[in-house]
Structures are given as C-alpha cells and as structure tokens.
C-alpha cells in the first residue's frame, strides 16, 4: 500500500525509536503535522521558538545518548535552528533535524519562506540531505540516524520539499549500504601496546578526559584505567561526569577556568593521556607552552582531531570504550606493572597542590555569592540531578562548584558557547527523565535568550528548575572588562532585568526570590518540592568573578586568583 511522504517520515521515526520530536509548524510542513495529529507513536513537543526546539532536542540527546529529533518549517523555521545545529556540531551531539522546504519546482526561485538550508548548514552538520524523491525518503532517514549516532556523533539535517512529503510511495526499510562511511572503532593494537609501555614508564602521568568518554559510554573503562595505573584525571568542560568528580584521583576541570591543581599537574606531567578530547584553545591556553615536558597519547575516534592543534607521540584512532578496554587488558596482562610506590611522589605533589589552592571564594553574610548557590544545589541534591547551564560565569561556577559523578548529568554548550542553551536543554532532558530533578543554572542575561520556553515547560508539565544567578550584568563580559578593559563596562550592564518572579507567575509557573545568603537554602528546598517549573531569582554579588582564570593566550599555569579584599588597589596577581 502506498503511503504519503509525511507518513513515511513518521513510520521511519517510529522504527528508529524516536518517540519525541521537538518542533514548530509552518506552511510547508502542515501536512506532516497533520499526519502527527492523531499519531500515537510519535509525540510532538511544541516549543515557542525553533531555537528552543533544537536545543531541547540536543538536551534530550545529551541526557539519553539517543539522537534528538526536531521538525521545523522552511525558511525562518529552518534558519532559526542553525545556532542549535552548530551547538550540537561543536559538541558532537547526535541530532536529526527535519526541515520543510518549498516544493521542488520552486527551489531556487526565491519562493516564500525559502532558504537554502542545506547550503547554510553544510559546514555545521555532520551531513545533510535534500530529498528529491519520495522513494528515497525512508532510506535517507535511516542513514541520517545512522550517521548522527555512529562514529563521532553529530547533527544531520534532512530538507523535505513539500511535494516530496505529499507524494506517495511504498514503505521500505532497506539495509544500509554506505561504502564511503565507515568509522574506525578498533584502535591499532600495536599503538595501544605502545601507549601501555609509555604509561608503564611514566612518572608523572595525567589523564585528560573529554566528551568522547561520555559519548562512547567509557566511564567504567576510564575509571578502571585511572585506578589500576593510579593516574590522576582532569576533565574538559565536555568531559565532566565522565569520571567521578568526588573521586580521590579527580582533579576537576582544566583550562581557562580550571583548577589550580589540574593546570599545574598538566604542565608538570611527563605523560598526558588525552581521551576523547580535541585540545580546544580553552583547554591548552598558549599551545607552545602547553605541557612542555609531556609525551602525549591521544585517543579519539576522529582522526582529524589528532595532531590538529597539538603534537602527539602515540596517536590512537578508535572508539574510546573499545580502545580503553584493550589498553586496560594490555596493562594488566602484558605490562603487569605495580604503581603503588612509583606514584607516591606524584600523587603527594598533587595533594599538596590541592591543599595549596583549592577552589574557593570569599564568604559574605550580606550578599549572596553565586558560588554558594551552586554549592548549595550540590549539597541539597547530593549530586543526584541533571544540571544544564547557560554560558558565561554561571556555566563556569556550575562546572567548578558542583561535583558530577555520573555521565550525562552535565549538559552544557562547550564548543560553541551558546547563551540560551540551558533552559530548552533542561526541558529536553526533563522530558526524557520525568522523575529526575533537572536544574538549569543560568544567568540573568542568558535566561532571557530563550525565556519563551517557559510556556513549553508549563504546558507539558515539565517541572524544570531554573536557578538564575542574577547579577544584572553579562557577568563574564563584565569580568573581562574589569580585568582587561580598565573597568569600562561597555554595554554589559542589563539595566532593566525583568522581575523573574512576576514573569514566572505570568506564565503560570512558580517564581521565588532570595536576596540574602540565609534565604538560599529555603528557596532551593521549596523549589525542589514543587512539581512545577520554578524560576529562582538569586540576587547575587555583581562584582563576583570566576577564578582561577587564565587570560586568553597565556600558558595555563599563568593563573589569576582572587586577592583578599583588603587590597583593592591591586586585585590580581599572576602566579606561575
């Protein structure tokens, strides 16, 4: 029996196990929405903006590990997803984006709501398709899910001209045959053996774990490696949760706002084992001065990540989980080294660094410190929550002062640094895990970038909690202006911030406010009890800065720290 392209799409989504689609209707996708209207298998979550839809799909994907799906109309509907697609692309998040397109015979005519979305998204998708024949549709959708979720994951866009989704065809579900797409999963055994022997010889090794650990589900294998060979582990922003933040071997995050001890350890190390990460500039600082004494073992599924920014001594292309499984086996069965004695001096050194400069902030009785809010969230949830963030100071404090013990509990836009990501991402995560506590740690600037999604949360009964660290500034911009632009706060002051409590009420959500440190805990406790979306407005110290900080382009052990407040004339000191 022949069915329409729209029905083929829904049947294909069903077969791919995509129960939830985030979207927004419009002219050329009306027929697809019509087919969804009485469909029981695929539920559409109507957002209030296409950017909300794409970030929600992304949050859903990060929380579950499955591909997130979005469905939008042509032209502005499609272009509104571009930021979210680029966000997912930078962080290797699997998405399948279905965009409507004007009918085939109108393509190129500057038709109403026409945009060349395949051209626009070519550099920020893993792959994209323009479907020209309804008979190709199911195969393309199957391929899209396959490409999005395998190898180094990423977003795939499928552009759907109206006439293609109206046309009818027999439904088929062909076996995939892609001769030009074959990711490398198994690492080269000889290289892995080399890595094992390099590890055996190292005196001061450090593991840098990136998002690849989470994407490949390799937390267990990573922990086994770290514990067996007694190697301390630092994480990139994307790697948080890949190794338990509370583990004795954890150094927390490294890089621009990384811990003193992580950056010190990396710089002093004689071996870096980089796992599923890509040496982003926020991680390396000045490349020429990065880990000057270290040999580098680099494990990544994407060969282009290896030797892109940093010289590598032992490159291993493969899936992190599989490579680590083999590496652990080689270390245990062939190398058979015992590290207890060898590591003593190095682990002692790291403990000293930890004691010397722990992550800290100056307590105040009068004004709420944003770090305190994050700490309290961690304390009250006991780390059992899904945290999303916006971008800027809120994101860095959330990375520093909350300990992530499990993968997929930390959802943050790392590579692209997209403000407005956290709230819709929290909605996506909450939909996937209705019974989990999902908290967006936000700033008063970022939350306003997709605040319209409060309606989505309310209507779908998604009890997302938003902790707004409200400093009336674009805090990170202000911080840089204070430190590097002579306190000239050019357009970073948000003079008029909405009353977030009233705003939440206007959307039939709940709004709570804390203005004193003593109110923080009661507000959080109350919010966590309410089974509704809650905006928590924490009026925090506007002068607070994120420390440690490595100025852009400096080596990562050139860190700035907060000076005691008694010496206001000279606030900062670079410490090597």
């Amino acid at each position: 029996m022949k069915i329409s392209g729209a029905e083929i799409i829904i049947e294909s989504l069903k077969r791919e196990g995509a129960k939830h689609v985030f979207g927004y209707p419009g002219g050329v996708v009306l027929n697809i929405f019509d087919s969804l209207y009485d469909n029981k298998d695929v539920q559409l979550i109507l957002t209030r903006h296409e950017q909300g839809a794409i970030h929600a799909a992304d949050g859903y994907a990060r929380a579950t590990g499955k591909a997130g799906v979005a469905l939008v109309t042509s032209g502005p509907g499609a272009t509104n997803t571009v930021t979210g697609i680029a966000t997912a692309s930078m962080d290797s998040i699997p998405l399948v984006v279905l965009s409507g397109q004007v009918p085939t015979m109108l393509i190129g005519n500057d038709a109403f709501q026409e945009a060349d979305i395949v051209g626009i998204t070519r550099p920020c998708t893993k792959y994209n398709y323009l479907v020209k024949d309804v008979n190709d549709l199911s195969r393309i959708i199957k391929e899209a899910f396959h490409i999005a979720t395998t190898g180094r994951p990423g977003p795939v866009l499928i552009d759907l001209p109206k006439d293609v989704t109206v046309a009818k065809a027999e439904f088929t579900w062909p076996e995939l045959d892609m001769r030009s797409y074959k990711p490398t999963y198994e690492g080269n055994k000889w290289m892995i053996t080399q890595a094992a022997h390099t590890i055996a010889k190292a005196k001061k090794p450090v593991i840098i774990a990136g998002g690849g650990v989470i994407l490949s589900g390799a937390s267990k294998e990573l922990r086994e490696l770290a514990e067996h060979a007694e190697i301390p582990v630092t994480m990139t922003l994307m790697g948080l949760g890949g190794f338990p933040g509370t583990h004795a071997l954890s150094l927390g995050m490294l890089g621009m706002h990384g811990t003193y001890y992580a950056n010190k350890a990396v710089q002093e190390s004689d071996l870096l084992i980089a796992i599923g990460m890509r040496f982003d500039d926020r991680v390396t600082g000045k490349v020429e001065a990065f880990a000057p004494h270290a040999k580098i073992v680099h494990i990544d599924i994407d060969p282009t990540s290896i030797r892109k920014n940093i010289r590598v001594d032992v490159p291993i292309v493969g899936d992190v989980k599989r490579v680590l499984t083999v590496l652990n086996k080689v270390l245990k069965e062939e190398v058979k080294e015992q590290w207890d004695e060898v590591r003593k001096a190095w682990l002692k050194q790291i403990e000293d660094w930890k004691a010397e400069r722990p992550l800290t902030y100056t307590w105040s009785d009068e004004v709420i410190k944003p770090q305190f809010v994050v700490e309290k969230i961690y304390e009250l949830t006991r780390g059992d929550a899904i945290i999303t963030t916006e971008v800027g100071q809120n994101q860095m404090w959330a990375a520093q002062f909350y300990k992530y013990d499990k993968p997929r509990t930390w959802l943050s836009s790392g590579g692209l640094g997209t403000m407005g990501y956290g709230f819709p991402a929290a909605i996506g995560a909450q939909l996937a895990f209705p019974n989990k506590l999902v908290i967006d740690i936000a700033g008063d600037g970022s939350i306003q970038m997709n605040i319209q999604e409060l309606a989505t949360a309310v209507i779908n009964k998604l009890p997302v909690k938003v902790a707004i660290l409200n400093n009336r500034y674009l805090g990170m911009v202000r911080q840089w202006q204070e430190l590097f632009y002579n306190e000239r706060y050019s357009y970073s002051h948000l003079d008029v911030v909405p009353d977030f409590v009233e705003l939440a009420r206007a959307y039939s959500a709940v709004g709570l406010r804390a203005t004193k440190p003593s109110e923080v805990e009661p507000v959080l406790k109350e919010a966590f009890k309410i089974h509704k979306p809650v905006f928590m407005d924490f009026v925090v110290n506007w002068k607070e800065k994120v420390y440690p900080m490595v100025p852009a382009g400096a080596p990562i052990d050139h860190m700035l720290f907060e000076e005691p407040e008694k010496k206001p004339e000279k606030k900062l000191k670079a410490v090597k």
Partner: protein
Amino acid sequence: MRHTISVLVENKFGVLSRVSGLFSGRGYNIESLSVGETIDPQVSVMTIVTTGDDQIIEQITKQLNKLIDVIKVTDMKELEHVEREMVLVKVAPKQEDKAEVLNITEIFRGRIVDSSQKTYTIEITGDEKKIEAFIELVKPMGIKEFVRTGKVAIAREGVKKK
C-alpha cells in the same frame, strides 16, 4: 609543498561544495581542481592541487576522508604517478612571428584547434613544466588569453615510489 590529491567521491549534487567548503572554511587554498566521472558513473574523481606544510596536508587528507561522500583519498606525492594538464592558448602574433608560433607549437607537439585572421588557438597537453615552458616562449609574441584545465593525475601500475 605542493601536493596533488586525488579524491574519489560519490557522484551526487552538493559534493563539490562539501569539498571546496572544507578548504575555504579552514583558509586552505585550492590551486587547481578538476572533476570528472570515472569508469563507474556513480563515482567521480577530483584532482586537487594544493599547497601546505605537512601538518596542513595531513589535515586536508584527514578532513577529506571524513567527508561522508568521499570514498578514497590519495596523495599522489606518495606514489609514482603521471600528471597531465591541458591548456588552450589564444595567440595573436604579428605577421612576422606567425611562423615561429607554429614552429614552437610543433616542437611542443601542440595542435592548432582554431584560427582567425589575427589569432591562433593552440592546444597543449603535458605536465606543468611543459605547459609553463610553452607559455613563456609564446608570451613575447602576444598571448590574448589562456585557459588551463587543472591537473589530472593517475598512479603508475606496478611501480613503487623510490
């Protein structure tokens, strides 16, 4: 260092822009690019001439391999191979130079493929050096314009790179 890279790709619309976008998005330059079908009509071959240090060339070949539509990437530097390019040169020689132009064309095993009262259009095929030598020789006699195809390259069979 200049490299000739041969890329087998799926013969589909949009593939060329994926390949060229890979170069432009990273600030790499394409010196020449030629595309044509292969013996399998579903596969095209692109011959790309580009320059860069070892790290850049490594990135280019890896990035090309990463493209979903790319089937195979060969850096011809690593192989014994044959390269050819064709150029069409429109020359407008003075009366007294006409014989010399024809002579040079003969020496270079070129062909006159069009002529008018004032011009000859000459076809020359060869490697880069030959084509450049021809252009240098004819230039003083008045080249109106020329068009080059860009290089094509093919590996030699059964010959290992020394």
